[in-house]
């Protein structure tokens, strides 16, 4: 049945009415408080550069007239107490104004030593601020440094990547220079145009975030400034963004999962199925309010952290996958206990997927597999191309769409209200879409986003291993993931008696599955657009399909035909086993995986 927007909206309206009616006031208040706390912590973390857990932990006895009083007062961990106060951690004695040096004494304890360190840092920061306020910046900062981060696999950081000349006579670098410290230094020097274009990361595509002000400190330091100010970047931004954007999703999917499972408990949803609505109307109508909440929360948080429409557009597909995975989980779960397991799994898996790659936001194109990297770049004010956006979010949209389609397939009386085992429901969810042999090809093609996501996650996880071991491990992952993806639809078809269990049918289905998978796999060519193929792991994962191999026409054609042959042959092997039941399928699947692995290893070794 087709989708009727009018009916869909009616279901959505009543879902809102029903859901708000079922929420008692106490729960609503607690939920609102929890949400506000989450937002408050996130916003506080962003605006203040972190939560001040170390406020006033060291007491410094210093006279209000002392020049040291101001640095102490401005420091978060230090608390200024009157000179001579007992039990202070640091005592500053500068009672003699004629003496330029003060006497600083500390308790001979570990806390005293730590307090002295904090005191020194506070004074250094204070002095630095005074220097920054000087009109003659060249005098204040005779040496300036500009950091420029480059891609690790293709370049090495050199001394000539960016300069800021003393005196600011020529404060520009070849691949982008900072405009904060360096630029100011140049202008302050002798009037030369020291301003650069973009920030330190602009030249490398994925640069160091430069939010400026308080938000800038989230990213672990400034790209330009005096040597004292330079510190390596820390992926705290990814953590904060993952927390800020993804934690509210957990509230949404809890409510959403409950409403879906509620339809299945005691057959409540049976009457909606009898009403003149399509299954898609019902599911879309019930999902719409929760997608709306997720979108609203995402927008509010994006605004709070200083992001724009790009941040919202980057995070929304994550929200859709949250909802889609929860929907399928709620359709498969047999109790609220199982649903809890589902929502926790969804939350942990997606948060990991979004967060871990984003750690490398400043390092490698691998980071782009997480849409949070787009958020980081949006916060930096960097441009994001359409291809990069599609690369980053496309798998999310496709995964969400496929999961919803799978869930809608089993949103019917025969599956909703039975206590069948989850694997059987999964097979049913696949089999409902199998009406003709060619549907197997479509199913294999639709598995590509999942394969893509699994392999990208494999790259991200194996990224830290030594290159040789990582590539072999990744080839194993690729063989397993792809053979299962091609075979599970065929197995579901045989298991649910959609096809005759004979050899000709198995060979036909295997060929169709392999061909469908091969065609869709070509879509992975998008990895070339963002430069992932330049990485050894990227080549291992996606280069074996013949994409962008850089070989001649004959070799290129062979590399195009060989993967097709590989997929068809291995899928057919698996299909033959699938006709004879689960154990036989598992056995033939192992054979298919071994062949696949051998092929990939040969190609990778040959291509070097």
């Amino acid at each position: 049945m087709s989708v009727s927007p009018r009916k869909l909206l009616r279901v959505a309206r009543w879902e809102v009415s029903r859901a708000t009616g079922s929420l008692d006031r106490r729960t609503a208040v607690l939920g609102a408080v929890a949400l506000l706390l989450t937002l408050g912590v996130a916003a506080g973390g962003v605006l203040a550069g972190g939560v001040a857990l170390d406020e006033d932990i060291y007491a410094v006895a210093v006279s209000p007239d002392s020049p040291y009083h101001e640095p102490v007062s401005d420091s978060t961990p230090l608390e200024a107490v009157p000179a001579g106060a007992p039990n202070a951690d640091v005592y500053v004695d500068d009672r003699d104004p004629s003496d330029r040096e003060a006497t600083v004494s500390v308790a001979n304890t570990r806390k005293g030593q730590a307090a002295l360190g904090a005191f020194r840092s506070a004074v250094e920061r204070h002095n630095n601020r005074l220097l920054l306020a000087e009109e003659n910046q060249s005098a204040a900062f005779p040496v300036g440094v500009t950091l420029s981060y480059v891609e690790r696999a293709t370049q090495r950081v050199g001394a000539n990547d960016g300069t800021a000349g003393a005196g600011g006579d020529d404060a520009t670098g070849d691949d982008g220079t900072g405009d904060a410290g360096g630029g100011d230094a140049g202008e302050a020097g002798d009037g030369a145009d020291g301003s650069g274009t973009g920030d330190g990361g602009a030249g490398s595509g994925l640069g160091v975030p430069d939010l400026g002000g308080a938000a800038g400190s989230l990213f672990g330091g400034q790209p330009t400034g005096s040597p004292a100010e330079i510190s390596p970047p820390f992926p705290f931004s990814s953590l904060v963004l993952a927390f800020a954007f993804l934690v509210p999703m957990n509230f949404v999917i809890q409510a959403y999962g409950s409403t879906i499972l509620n339809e299945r408990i005691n057959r409540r949803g049976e009457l909606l199925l009898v009403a003149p609505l399509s299954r898609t109307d019902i599911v879309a109508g019930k999902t719409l309010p929760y997608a709306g909440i997720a979108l609203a929360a995402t927008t509010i948080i994006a605004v709070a952290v200083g992001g724009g429409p790009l941040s919202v557009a980057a995070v929304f597909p994550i929200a859709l996958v949250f909802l889609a995975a929860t929907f399928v989980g709620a359709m498969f779960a047999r109790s609220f206990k199982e649903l809890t397991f589902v929502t926790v799994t969804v939350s942990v898996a997606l948060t990991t997927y979004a967060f871990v790659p984003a750690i490398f936001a400043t390092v490698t194109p691998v980071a782009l597999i997480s849409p949070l990297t787009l958020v980081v770049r949006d916060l930096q004010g960097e441009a994001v191309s359409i291809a990069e956006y599609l690369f980053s979010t496309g798998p999310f949209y496709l995964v969400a769409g496929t999961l919803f389609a799978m869930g809608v397939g089993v949103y019917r009386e025969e599956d909703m209200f039975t206590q069948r085992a989850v694997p059987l429901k999964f097979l049913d969810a696949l089999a409902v879409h199998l009406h003709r042999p060619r549907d197997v090809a479509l199913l294999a093609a639709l598995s590509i986003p999942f394969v893509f996501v699994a392999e990208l996650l494999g790259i991200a996880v194996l990224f830290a291993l030594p290159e040789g071991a990582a590539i072999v491990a990744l080839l194993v992952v690729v063989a397993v993931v792809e053979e299962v993806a091609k075979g599970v639809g065929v197995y579901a078809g045989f298991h649910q008696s959609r096809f005759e269990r004979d050899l000709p049918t198995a060979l036909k289905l295997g060929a169709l599955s392999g061909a469908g998978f091969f065609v869709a796999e070509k879509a992975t060519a998008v990895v070339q657009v963002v430069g992932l193929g330049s990485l050894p792991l990227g080549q291992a994962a996606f280069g074996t399909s013949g994409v962008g191999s850089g070989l001649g026409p004959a070799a290129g054609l062979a590399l195009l035909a060989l993967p097709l042959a590989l997929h068809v042959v291995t899928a057919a092997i698996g299909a033959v086993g699938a006709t004879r039941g689960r154990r036989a399928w598992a056995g033939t699947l192992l054979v298919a995986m071994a062949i696949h692995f051998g092929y990939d290893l040969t190609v990778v070794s040959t291509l070097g």
Partner: protein
Amino acid sequence: MITVDGLRKVYGDFVAVQGSTFDVEPGEIFGVVGPNGAGKTTTLKTLAGLIEPTAGAVRVAGEPAGDPETRTALGFLPEESPLYEDMTARSYLRFFADLYDVPRETANQRIETALDDLELEHRDRRLGDVSKGMKRKVAIARSLVNDPDVLIYDEPASGLDPLTTNYVLEYVRELADAGKTVLFSAHNLYHVESVCDRVVIMNEGEIVARGTVEEIRAEHGETTYRVFTTVPVDGSEPDGDRHVSTVDSMDAVEGIREAAADAGGEVVDIRTRESTLEEIFLDVAGQPMPGSRRVSPGATDGDRRREPSEPPEPPEAAE
């Protein structure tokens, strides 16, 4: 109004319904009876469009079951009353009226009429807080908000007390009198006998008997005659100052009359006993109806036959 032609439904290796065929006329109350697992609920759900048949054709008002037009003209009452318990009766009914595209004015009017007819109280109380009988009435009202031509009721009196049960059955009868076609399943065969115009008996996915209750009784049941005479005849037993013979055909009755006359006596009374639907079910299905129970006046649980309150006229006047 309803046509079922060769309906077959298979779940994996289990055949739930195998080749059912029957028709239901407009304005008729049609009963589907059978034990658990007989396939009656599967049949009803297929008609409601909830389940796709493996084979065969199922049509409601000329359209395939499950089509949007068919659903609009259909009211379905499942065996349980799965309501949204956070809603009130009114809001629940309005929700479904909305889904069926019923204009608001009409919906409000229909809802109030249905609630009045069903004598439903507590219309603005949360459905989770009302009794099971009330919930069942709300479920019945919901099946009527779209003013359907066809009602499919699966065990409409399931779990209700006798008073509410009688009320619901009478209401179903009134609906049929008002022109609705009702397909009705029940475990309690007395309900079926008292309400249904025609019946099919299902067992293990097959229809094993069909027709009016009388037709089924004539085909699958048996009629026994207790013939009271003033004199003993061959095979009779004393019954007070009379003698009684039990036979199963009118020819035998005639033989007793002649024998009594030859002995100088006469037949003074003939009483007829017919098989109940439950007995017929036992005969054709070979198992008792789960949950079935006699409710006719004067009957006991151990009595498996129904005694008519008034003996029918004998086929031939007693001499």
